[in-house]
């Protein structure tokens, strides 16, 4: 197996308005990130129509790249078109030197910093993640004595995958995580928020990862859920030595070269792909198309 994967990522989001809209300002987090030792950003472009009045590229608190755009005139359609070539590097499973929950607690307490990698940001409640007794009990049911944090993260991720039913129709972007958990259904966003709540409820710092996953599975593997849209999964802090680890509860998989990261945040609210989209009176429709094609496959296709 390759120790790295090369992908062409294509994303097209289209908003169509029944009545002409005008003006508006958005913040976009759509472009794959460059992460040393994890993911190489080779090239990329973000094209937008109609013509922009303003565009500003910068980093947010969690060091994610974002693009703020503003339109002035009127329009009845907005298109965001992302193209990027990304290399994903194989993550070698290191020795499991992660602490237990008690050890983790001490390690967290020893961190006296609030920079963007500090685990403190990823504890307790955040805008979209709330902790309740039921979630905590659910999380604890997967924890056994002497388990390391890495083992606990995987156990909870797997456990969640087992009890949840993937259902793209059951929830919307604004469905509260409690409801998705209660009814045990939803999409990647719901899986991710519930798993974050589980981890935080037992003292493991956890955050939200937005990104893409490969569209066509590697040979002999089944097609990944969420491949036809943008995806989300979980990141958890497993102590100083192991650092941040990632798990995809929707696909019951430890994250490796199938996943391309866009941004890291506490939950969806920190890093929603598009914020501030125009709401006009009258109907509007949104279409999203994603293709994440491994370059080798592409060569094979054209050959």
């Amino acid at each position, binding site marked *: 197996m390759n120790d790295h994967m090369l992908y062409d990522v294509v994303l097209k989001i289209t908003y169509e308005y029944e009545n002409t809209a005008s*003006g*508006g*300002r*958005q*913040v976009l987090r759509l472009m794959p990130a460059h992460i040393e030792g994890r993911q190489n950003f080779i090239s990329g472009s973000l094209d937008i129509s109609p013509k922009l*009045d*303003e565009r*500003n590229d910068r980093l*947010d*608190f*969690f060091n994610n790249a974002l693009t*703020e755009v*503003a339109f002035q005139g009127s329009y009845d359609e907005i298109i965001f078109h992302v193209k990027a070539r990304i290399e994903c590097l194989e993550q070698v499973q290191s020795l499991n030197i992660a602490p237990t929950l008690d050890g983790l607690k001490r390690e*967290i*307490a020893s*961190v*006296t*910093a*609030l920079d963007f990698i*500090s685990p*403190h*940001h990823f*504890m*307790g*409640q955040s805008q979209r993640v709330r902790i309740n007794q039921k979630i905590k009990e659910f999380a604890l049911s997967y924890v056994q004595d002497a388990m390391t944090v890495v083992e606990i993260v995987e156990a909870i991720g797997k456990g969640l995958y087992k009890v949840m039913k993937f259902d793209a129709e059951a929830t919307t972007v604004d469905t509260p995580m409690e409801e998705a958990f209660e009814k045990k259904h939803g999409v990647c966003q719901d899986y991710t928020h519930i798993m974050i709540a589980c981890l935080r409820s037992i003292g493991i710092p956890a955050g939200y990862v937005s990104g893409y996953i490969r569209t066509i599975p590697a040979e002999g593997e089944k097609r990944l859920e969420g491949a036809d849209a943008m995806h989300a999964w979980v990141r958890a802090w497993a102590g100083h030595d192991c650092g941040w680890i990632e798990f995809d509860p929707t696909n019951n998989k430890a994250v490796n070269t199938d996943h391309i990261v866009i941004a890291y945040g506490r939950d969806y*609210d920190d890093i*929603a792909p598009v*914020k*501030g989209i125009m709401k006009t009176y009258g109907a509007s429709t949104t279409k999203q198309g994603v293709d994440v094609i491994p370059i080798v496959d592409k060569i094979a296709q054209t050959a």
Partner: protein
Amino acid sequence: MAKKSKTIKSQDERVADVINGYARMEGVADELLNHDGTIRPVWQEFINFFSSLSDATIQKRFARGDQYLRDAGVFYRRYDQGDANERDWPFSHIPIILDEGEWDHIAQGLIQRADLLEYVMADLYGAQDLVTQGHLPAELIAATPEWLRPMVGATPKSGSFLHLLAFEIGRGPDGTWWVLGDRTQAPSGAGFALENRVATNHVFADHYAKMQIHRLAGFFKRFRSSLMDMAAPDDCGVGILTPGRLNDAYYEHAYIARYLGFMLLEGEDLIVHQGKTMVRTVDGLRPISVLWRRLDSSFADPLEFNEASILGTPGMANAVRNGALNMVNALGSGVLENRFMLAFLPRICEAIRGEKLLIPNIASWWCGQEKERDQVLGNTENLMFGPAHSTFLPFEQNEMFSLMGNGEHVALRDQVLNNGQDYVAQEAIKLSTTPVYIDGKLRPRPMTIRVFLARTENGWDVMPGGYARIGQEKGETVLALQGGGQVADVWIKSQGEIERESITDTQGKTFVRQVQDVLPSRAADNLFWLGRYIERSEMMMRMARGYHIRLGENEGQPTPLLQFMSHHFAKFEVEEGAPLAKTINATLFSAMGSAGHVRDRFSNDGWAALKDLSRTAQIVANDVPDGDEAANAYHIMLRKISGFAGLVHESMYHYTGWRFLKIGRALERASITASLLDYFTKTGVPDGALELPVEICDSTMTHRRRYLVTTNSDTVVDLLALDGMNPRSILYQINDFKEHLSFLPGQSDQVYLSDLAKTALKIHTDLSVSHPDDLEKGYFKDLEEDIYTLCNMLNEAYLS
């Protein structure tokens, strides 16, 4: 002789009467009396004066203050039982009097605290040394919703994060002052303090003038100039950013905007354009770079903070980051209000400044530390517990609890034990009491004072006075203020002469006329609609009066004419089948809504007149029987509404905003008149129908004098549509509209007429050259449509 000495008491006796009935509470300090029961010297003069007043005089004086507050429309809003009602101002007429020397000590302590808070704020949004060095726990800050991550690394344009602060202080049993909480997000109350001062001045005018009490105007004047100094040269002014009329302190925002001459702006009045903040005005986008923020930071920008906020302006946070906008106070300043801060500030002060807090804050312990938690749980005597991340003062919400006593509170104690990081324990200090006049006697009640500090070019300026809150009940701790009480003025008594300055003082210049007239589009829109709603309700009142007079004449029996009328009224219905009285009530309610949005542009008299009108309409809608009684009620309402119109016409300055009000009125009158003519001059109308439009348009007398024939459709049309001399005619309204339009931005400086002016001119010309005979069937229906077109064009050009 002996008899006389019994009825007329000496001053000493009268003072003794006042004092003897004053049951001072044990174990707490009192503002009026020393521990030995003697009067504090600073109160002596006031008590001498007060004791010379008879009970009746006191009531009369108090009533004067209350009348002022009612006339001024001072109210506050409370959100209980799910509805937001305006409540009467709970004013306690007796001021709190403090000595200048003691006040100086308080001022020094609060200036030190303000500097300390500025340091902490700059650190939390900058280097974060306090966290890395262990003075503030990282986990506490990370869990604070008011610590806004997007603002980390942003330095304020003016160089300072904090510009206006308030501190809630109280006096402990041994006489020392304590800080109960810091207000740093968007402190309210400075305007209320000013209103309380005006009100006490109405109550004790003669006495106040004689006593040497520090005035408040100078503080506001210096704060105003410090804000104006921050503005850029091409700014259209300084804005006060308000969450809008549903906020509990909206009245204060409007009041202070009017007082300081600042624009009152809501989020939708602003737009970020090419990195700059602009006001949407009727004259296009105009730059602004200083906003006094009365809106919580997290609502200020839906792109970076609370996405659900509809009160904010997208892009505002980035404008601040780019140094294009001065926010007073900086976005994210709410972090300093968290209860847990009080547990760390004393040590931070010592570590950073090498000195103790001059005025301590109430002793507080964060229960997230094992040692502290065990200590406070070990001895819960005189402690209160509350959420660590709450930004409320101890008495503002019923969120504080006590763990005193045995066996009780097991669940709460377990909460603190297991989730210590979520709780702070605080000393439940016993507050001092101050006199309140209840049932003809002075009684002691616990109080706190909110003190305001403004940053000026000469450093922090302390308002010599404050906003006092007084507990309802006799209780002694801070918790006695829970559930609301009264408010009072605070007098700082000087030993020497005081400076008497007013907000309108101008340096050396005797006369400064402010020419700038920036009218935000939203304000113009509200004035336009206010004009329309008022006119609409007036026309409907006339219709209703006409109807009820005829109903009364027919002993309540339906006639063809009455049915014909009702059918027309249905046009205005807000809900199907609702009687006209209900519709009138609803329309006036809408008028109040529009007026409420532009409280800062509205005189108090105008507001009071409108409120009175709306109240009457409500009574008429609910309680007045049809027929003669209703007709009478409409007589009264029509008198009231013409009173309001008179105020607008006679007293409102002819700013651009006034023109929008007049335009709204003219276009509404024109369109309703057109619809009346369309309906009531048709062929085959019931007997007497032709009289109605003339009557509704208040032109009966004119008609009689002007035409020597009986009423026919030609005379009616001529008088109500085509006669330019009749102030009720459609032609007159269009003429009026054209006149006002010519004063609006972008109308007079063009070589060619604007589309709006062209359309108006066409309508005008058509009406001017027509004779009743020329008008084809359906003319007035089309005319009504044309007038709506004018409204839409006006909306497009100025109001959106």
